[in-house]
């Protein structure tokens, strides 16, 4: 029989398991094969990175106005420079660009306000962002009120259009997706079958077909004299399409919440909507952040498909600029620029979702 009279104190870990050198040794040079693989990997990286950096930065031409200003030894960013306004605003009239700038400014300010935790009045800012701002943005961009000249939607384009499509799609798809997901789990047969049919229909059809239908078929079904703006049709198609995907993501989250949660809420006398809104959805949505953001990112990139119905989003306008005879042969620069802009937005969303997950996960793991 052993009786320990004293408890053993905590001791620090051995020093050769800590620090960067130890990390390198453990992960990259732990044996002859690993050392060889590390060296080969580094060499391949060197082969890839050096020419890329030379092309994109060192040998690149940055200033100028025409293709004559480019040496063609590296990237010719002059092209992007010269067409920058078009890439951002599409065919929006030059004299009215200040209106788009105000909307851009408001858009990014609101997003920053909602994303930075320290700033106050989150609830009111969110209400404004969802109600007041879209109306104000529409009035400003579209014009026709307060002596603002009308700018029809077919002149909207570039990054502005991409952001518009993506944010309307996201803001619309999330609530519709939640309602569809709840409906699909409902006990009411009519609600349930409606939601199942809706989701399966939109998930089974390619987005490109949806957009074609929206732009070509829909006008055939509408009574003559009623025409819906092409941009609005694209927005509706995109939103409904993505809400079906969103519904399935959220349904997955709802299924992961133990039944006991809803039962406990029910036992306290909560109505269906309170059980969902206060207990089940907050937990499900938190768990589903990666899936929701994944859907958002794919939605953001899917907006490029509006090109086929004659709307010029960022990628569309870049492609249109490439066919300009003054700038033939700069497609690489154009696509790299478009890819870079898309990457910035998608990567920011991804990082923000990781931050949100960490923030919401503190303290209450099961």
């Amino acid at each position, binding site marked *: 029989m052993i009786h320990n009279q004293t408890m053993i104190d905590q001791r620090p870990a051995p020093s050769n398991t800590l620090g960067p050198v130890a990390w390198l040794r453990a992960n990259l040079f732990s044996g002859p094969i690993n050392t060889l693989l590390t060296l080969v990997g580094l060499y391949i990286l060197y082969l890839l990175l050096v020419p890329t950096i030379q092309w994109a930065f060192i040998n690149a031409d940055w200033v100028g106005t025409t293709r004559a200003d480019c040496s063609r030894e590296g990237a010719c960013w002059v092209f992007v420079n010269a067409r920058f306004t078009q890439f951002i605003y599409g065919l929006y009239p030059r004299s009215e660009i200040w209106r788009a700038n105000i909307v851009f400014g408001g858009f990014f300010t609101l997003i920053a306000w909602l994303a930075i935790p320290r700033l106050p009045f989150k609830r009111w800012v969110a209400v404004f962002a969802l109600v007041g701002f879209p109306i104000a943005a529409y009035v400003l961009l579209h014009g026709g009120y307060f002596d603002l000249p009308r700018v029809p939607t077919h002149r909207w384009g570039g990054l502005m259009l991409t952001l518009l499509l993506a944010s309307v799609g996201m803001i619309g798809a999330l609530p519709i997706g939640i309602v569809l997901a709840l409906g699909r789990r409902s006990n009411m047969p009519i609600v349930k079958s409606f939601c199942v049919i809706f989701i399966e229909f939109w998930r089974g059809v390619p987005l490109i077909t949806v957009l074609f239908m929206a732009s070509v078929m829909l006008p055939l079904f509408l009574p003559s004299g009623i025409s819906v703006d092409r941009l609005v049709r694209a927005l509706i198609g995109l939103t409904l399409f993505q809400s079906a995907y969103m519904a399935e993501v959220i349904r997955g989250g709802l299924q992961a919440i133990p039944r006991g949660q809803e039962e406990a809420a*029910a036992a*306290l006398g*909560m109505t269906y909507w309170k059980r969902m809104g206060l207990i089940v959805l907050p*937990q499900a949505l938190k768990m589903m952040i990666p899936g929701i953001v994944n859907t958002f990112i794919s939605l953001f990139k899917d907006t490029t498909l509006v090109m086929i119905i004659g709307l010029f989003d960022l990628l569309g306008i870049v492609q249109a600029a490439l066919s300009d005879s003054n700038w033939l042969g700069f497609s690489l620069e154009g696509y790299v620029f478009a890819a870079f802009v898309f990457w910035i937005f998608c990567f920011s969303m991804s990082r923000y979702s990781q931050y949100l997950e960490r923030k919401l996960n503190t*303290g*209450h793991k*099961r």
Partner: protein
Amino acid sequence: MTQAATNTSDPHAPGLMVEMRGVNKWYGDFHVLRDIHLEVKRGERIVICGPSGSGKSTLIRCINHLEEHQQGDIVVGGVPLTQDVKRIEQIRRSVGMVFQHFNLFPHLTVLENCCIAPMWVQKKPRREAEDQAMRYLERVRIAEQAKKYPGQLSGGQQQRVAIARSLCMHPDVMLFDEPTSALDPEMIKEVLDVMVELAEEGMTMLCVTHEMGFAKTVADRVIFMDQGQIIEENAPEPFFNNPQSERTQLFLSQILGH
């Protein structure tokens, strides 16, 4: 079932808290509850025991309609239980329930767990709900953990919070569904102590449990169920010392024998 229940307009004996008459329930073809007759008076403390799968959890879950019964009448606090959602919610507000796995809301703090129903169901102002929650948390001796999340508490602590959460709705009757079965042995006592106090204060209780010590100390009546039926029903003293049915004797010898 709906029709039968709405026809019951007979005056209920005063002080009758829960009344079940001829209740039958099936899961598909499986007959889980068979002709249940049960009357619980106000302030009465009832312990329900029986082998697993005997329908004892299902029985108390029918009282607040977490399970639906297909035949028979259930009347809670004078209100007949029907399919009507409003009426079900009304009954649930007056019936507290404590679950085997606590079912605290993990995304809310202990205090918020206790405030959410008073605030959203009873429309109490936040301050009032919080004051009341703190009083009940003190009663179950866990007030100092109010700001923590359920995941940071031990099982026994979580179950005491769950009891406080129910009490915050001022229930007329409390249902306990195996409240100590998921707990480590050293935590069972702290939960049972709270339940004993509650019983001594006169709370009407229906408790599904295998804690026979608890049954002996506080129960007015012990009910033994097997295969969906109430086999035996008696005061604890004769129930334990002189069980009538063979199945009760066998069950008691198995759980008390070791």
